[in-house]
């Protein structure tokens, strides 16, 4: 979808190649606090185009807050965020969406009153432009636009293998399927950066395998850059190109999976060694 990303459809494994790649997003010295409580303290890291970047850490480490900062839902008190080479001003979440950042949520945040199809169609909202007048008439431009986007959505439905639940209200779906629909909804936005907040939480092994496959496919076929939060270390190590580790709102490690795995601070954090 992204012209640049499409050129690099095969995921390069070589470190040097990656370093040369363009930066998509850079977080510099970001701090965030609620009242007196510090959620994030002075964190810096970057996300490169085309990679799968994992953010890990124990509960309460500030991972979700970090995602919320990236897509404009929280505004950090300090630090800057650079998006595609430009320092980002303070902005609204919907502006982040229009810049090409999509996400899924830790606790599924689907539109419960709508069907699977409508949920995924809602991801196309930004790409549809027919105004109220045409919508009222329906016949003609509005219908044409709707069909055009329906085609794209059907591609996503095929890709995620959820054809059978197309017209089911999402409230009635199992948790695993809901997560899949949510991924579909984010994909429908054709994002440059896809943020996944615990995409595999609460899933069984088969579901996790399916989800991993979808994530890799999205990254490789569409070339979408992905930042994900996950607790399942096995999954993280297998999927991600680089990992950043947070603990108590601070960054304690950053690097390729195998390097991070060996880091003593990380091991301490996970084992709960007192500070």
């Amino acid at each position, binding site marked *: 979808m992204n012209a640049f990303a499409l050129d690099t459809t095969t995921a390069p494994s070589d470190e040097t190649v990656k370093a040369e790649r363009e930066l998509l997003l850079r977080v510099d010295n970001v701090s965030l606090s*609620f*009242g007196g409580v510090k959620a994030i303290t002075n964190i810096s890291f970057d996300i490169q185009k085309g990679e799968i970047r994992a953010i890990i850490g124990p509960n309460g480490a500030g991972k*979700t807050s970090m995602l*919320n900062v990236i897509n404009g*839902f929280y505004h950090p008190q300090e630090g800057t965020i650079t998006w595609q080479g430009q320092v980002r001003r303070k902005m609204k979440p919907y502006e982040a969406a229009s810049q090409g950042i999509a996400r899924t*949520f*830790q*606790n599924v*945040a689907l539109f419960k009153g709508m069907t699977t199809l409508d949920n995924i169609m809602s991801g196309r909202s930004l790409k549809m432009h027919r105004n109220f007048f045409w919508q009222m008439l329906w016949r003609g431009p509005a219908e044409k636009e709707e069909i055009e986007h329906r085609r794209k959505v059907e591609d996503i439905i095929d890709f995620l293998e959820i054809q059978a639940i197309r017209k089911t209200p999402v409230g009635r779906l199992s948790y695993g399927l809901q997560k899949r629909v949510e991924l579909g909804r984010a994909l429908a936005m054709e994002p440059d950066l896809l943020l996944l907040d615990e995409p595999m939480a609460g899933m069984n092994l088969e579901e996790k395998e399916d989800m991993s496959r979808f994530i890799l496919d999205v990254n490789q076929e569409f070339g979408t850059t992905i930042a994900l939060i996950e607790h399942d270390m096995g999954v993280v190590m297998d999927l991600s190109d680089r990992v950043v580790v947070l603990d108590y709102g601070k960054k304690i490690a950053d690097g390729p999976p195998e390097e991070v795995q060996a880091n003593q601070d990380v091991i301490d954090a996970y084992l709960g060694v007192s500070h």
Partner: protein
Amino acid sequence: MLYDIFIDPFVQMYEMPDFFLQVLWEGFVAGILYALIALGFVLIFKASGVFNFAQGIMVVFAGLTLVGLNENGVPAYLALLLTIAVMGVLAYGVERVVMRPLVNQPEIILLMATIGLTYFLIGFGEFVFGGEPKQMIAEQLGLPTGSTAFEMGERGLIILQHIDIAAAVIAVVMVAALGVFFNKTRIGRALRAVADDHQAALSVGISLNQIWAIVWFAAGLVALATGIMWGARSDVSFALEIVAFKALPVLILGGFTSIPGAIVGGLIIGFGEKIGELYWGGLVGGGIESWLAYIIALIFLLFRPQGLFGERIIERI
């Protein structure tokens, strides 16, 4: 024009201090009465999350029952006891017929159910007691009815109605009693537990149904007190139900779950609308009281969406 808006009202307040004090007193009394209605809402919302629209009609219904019984020859104090019993039956009935089957429904559905209850009580109340306004039997209940005037300066005069003083006293007593009830009794603690978390309360063996019947009964008692007080000020009629809407801006200011909030909110609205009407209302032809309270609440909400006593909301995903 600017003079009329920004200076003249204050000049007036200064020049006629007795009148200003009288306005404050009226605002205080109105505020107490609004607060009493709001208190009924708060009790039920706290324990069950139901926004009880029927509180207004419960005020009318309680007042009507009291007066209606008395008209039919029941002595005043016995009528009061019987009315309390009727409110108890009503609370039990509401819990059985309305609350229990609707448990865990979204708040708008519960709100609608209480509006349905309002319709039912209007029809039932008029059917039993007739639609005529009735005189509150304040004297028979031993409530003071006279007034006391204080001279102030040369022409100054402040008139305090004894019934208003009684209303203030009763309101204070009720709030204190509710405070003791909530904090010191077993049922009160159970009630607070329910307010915090239904599931958790259930799991430690608190009966939700019992609690709900009790809060509806408590709200019924508050309604009865309000009905007596307001009835003594004008009279008991179905038009009173509309006055009860005033409790809504009070709730907004005070928050839906805070008893002190209801009192403070009631006073803010009471003072605000009396002072607004008397010193600024004339500029636009008067009668602004019908909406001033709502506008005050609206403006307030724009700056503090969580209400006076609510905690700052941090949105999470």
